[in-house]
């Protein structure tokens, strides 16, 4: 990396943060116009640091349409942006768009993929990246208040970090961080999926409106990390026994049927604006590579907050933590490294509004 034009990919999900938590709690809705503004800020940032081509997932939810209008205006104003190309795919407004875009971006050899969305969107991208096995890192941007995996961070900074990695200014061993995930397998791989933060087992056994928010239905949680600062079901683990993103192992939490039989009644922020008392039976570390068999006879597995995999009595559900499963751009470390190494210092060139200093930098 570092040779030839630097290219990155962007997958921006137009429909994340529209689920039932807007009504049952007061979860935020990030409007399309805001999502487009986030993308524009990423584009500005990456272009300023030498990325001149961006491949984007097309969508029918309004981001492409509004972004195209904005870029047209920006071009009229002679503002500098990288070349933005939409991937050659026909969006159908389901999660398959994300899968297909991740597939196409891997094939085109982008240096990194910026993902705008919630936990679910990030999960979909990572799932596809696992299939491709290209090791392309992602940089996540949360587009809601409901997410544990992607960071709430100003997108300009994320864009800068991505560009520092994509242009080779910062080497991968400094720019990237390894991540854990949880594999869920039903009947020895008959059905198979992943979770980036939490695989939660619920008694509910139907998918309904997908989002999981009724704590009385919870059976157990399997967590890659448990952050007391996180929102969502993983916060239950975070409040019991914190486990960091980069720490080895995960956490398994088993819930009691009711408060009376619970060892602990824990009050946790299981969704934005929603604190619930959750009856805890016990919890235990989840070492990497060790399969946990779910003892529940019939239910649904929710992956990163959404009911995805219903199972019946007799179905054998196993969950396993994997370490070093995929890479993310470590934004904080990139920016600190850039400061430490003076990467963004350059000679004063007062007469050039758009310095192309990066083209002449030393290798």
């Amino acid at each position, binding site marked *: 990396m570092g040779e030839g034009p630097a290219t990155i990919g962007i997958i921006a999900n*137009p*429909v994340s943060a*529209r*689920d*039932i938590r*807007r*009504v*049952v709690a*007061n979860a935020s*809705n990030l*409007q*399309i*116009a805001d999502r487009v503004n986030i993308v524009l800020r990423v584009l500005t940032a990456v272009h300023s640091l030498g990325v001149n081509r961006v491949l984007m997932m097309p969508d*029918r*939810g*309004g*981001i492409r*349409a*509004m972004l195209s209008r904005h870029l047209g205006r920006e071009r009229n104003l002679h503002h500098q942006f990288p070349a933005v190309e939409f991937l050659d795919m026909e969006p159908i*407004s389901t999660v398959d768009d994300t899968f297909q875009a991740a597939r196409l971006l891997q094939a085109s050899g982008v240096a990194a993929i910026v993902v705008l969305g919630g936990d679910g969107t990030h999960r979909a991208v990572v799932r596809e990246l696992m299939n491709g096995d290209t090791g392309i890192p992602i940089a996540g941007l949360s587009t809601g208040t409901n997410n544990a995996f992607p960071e709430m961070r100003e997108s300009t900074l994320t864009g800068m970090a991505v560009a520092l990695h994509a242009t080779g200014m910062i080497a991968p061993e400094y720019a990237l961080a390894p991540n854990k995930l949880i594999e869920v397998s039903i009947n020895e791989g008959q059905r198979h999926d992943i979770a980036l933060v939490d695989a939660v087992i619920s008694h*509910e*056994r*139907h*998918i*309904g*409106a*997908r989002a999981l928010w009724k704590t009385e239905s919870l059976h157990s949680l399997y967590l890659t990390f448990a952050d007391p600062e996180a929102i969502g079901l993983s916060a239950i683990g975070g409040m019991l026994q914190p486990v960091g993103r980069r720490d080895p192992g995960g956490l398994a939490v088993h819930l009691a049927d009711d408060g009376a039989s619970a060892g602990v009644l824990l009050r946790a922020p299981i969704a934005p604006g929603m604190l619930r008392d959750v009856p805890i039976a016990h919890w235990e570390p989840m070492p990497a590579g060790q399969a946990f068999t779910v003892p529940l*006879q*019939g239910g*649904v597995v929710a992956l990163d907050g959404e009911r995805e995999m*219903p199972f*019946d*009595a007799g179905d054998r559900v196993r969950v396993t933590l994997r370490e070093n499963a995929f890479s993310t751009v470590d934004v904080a470390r990139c920016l600190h490294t850039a400061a430490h190494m003076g990467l963004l210092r350059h000679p004063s060139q007062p007469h050039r509004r758009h310095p192309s200093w990066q083209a002449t930098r030393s290798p």
Partner: protein
Amino acid sequence: MAGNPFPLSKAELLKAYRTMRTIREFEERLHVDFGRGDIPGFVHLYAGEEAAAAGIMIHLGDGDRIASTHRGHGHCIAKGVDVGEMMLEIYGKKGGSCNGKGGSMHIADLSKGMMGANGILGAGAPLVCGAALAAKYRKKGEVAISFVGDGASNQGTFLESLNLAAVWNLPAIFVVENNGYAESTSRDYGVAVDSYVDRAAGFGLPGITVDGTDFFAVYEAAGEIIRRAREGGGPSLLECKMVRFHGHFEGDAQTYRGPGELDDIRANHDCLKKFAAQVTAAGVISADELAPIDREALAVVEDAVARAKAAPLPTVADLTTDVYVSY
């Protein structure tokens, strides 16, 4: 046997299926009869969109009001309007829901809380504010629901109603049935803000987008929104993303559709097929239990058509009645 995984009893599931199947048979039959020239006027069919009507209306009683659209047959059936009277009405016959004076676009039955299909796009939203206001005064926990298509969501009446409902904290619910087309014009062209949840947010209302072809997704989301409204939590918006099996109106050649689009939505996005697959896969209802409902729905529709064809037409004596209560 793991039991019923769904939040509805088996009887309720069968009722929902019967509602959806009856709508489907009703609409597909109208498609055929209109093509034969048996039906006067304009007809807009709801086929393909049944899960939204059924998933919402199953939460409602007769005291809850709805205002429908020009594509209203499904809402009527799901709200409990008599199918036989509806068919008489669509055929323009005496004894129809509106005695032959309304037709397909204006079927109403206030005793069932059905405030009328409406030939004016977006007109139902202010009416629903009024119905919700009346419910607020009555204090019985009733709600009112306005249905609007993605196209009519651009009407000022709709946007003004979102504001009024928010200002007055009405037990009003706004359902956007997004089938992707305003007549022949793509939603992508005609709606400047691409998410209806964004529109609701602009008025400070919560909103949800659900897969409107998935009965269970609609059921759960609608249930929460309706409960919230009943308990004084105020108005909300529900966007159901759905598909339209037929044209804007009957006789529409639908040349604006993409190649293979109709085959795809019938094959892969049929809410009835999805429902049947979900309940049979869960082992709650067998295909053998659904089949008789299919036959009964067909029989109900065939009987309604036969009676409608045989029924008398209105006469000159009917022309000038029912303009006023008194005049």
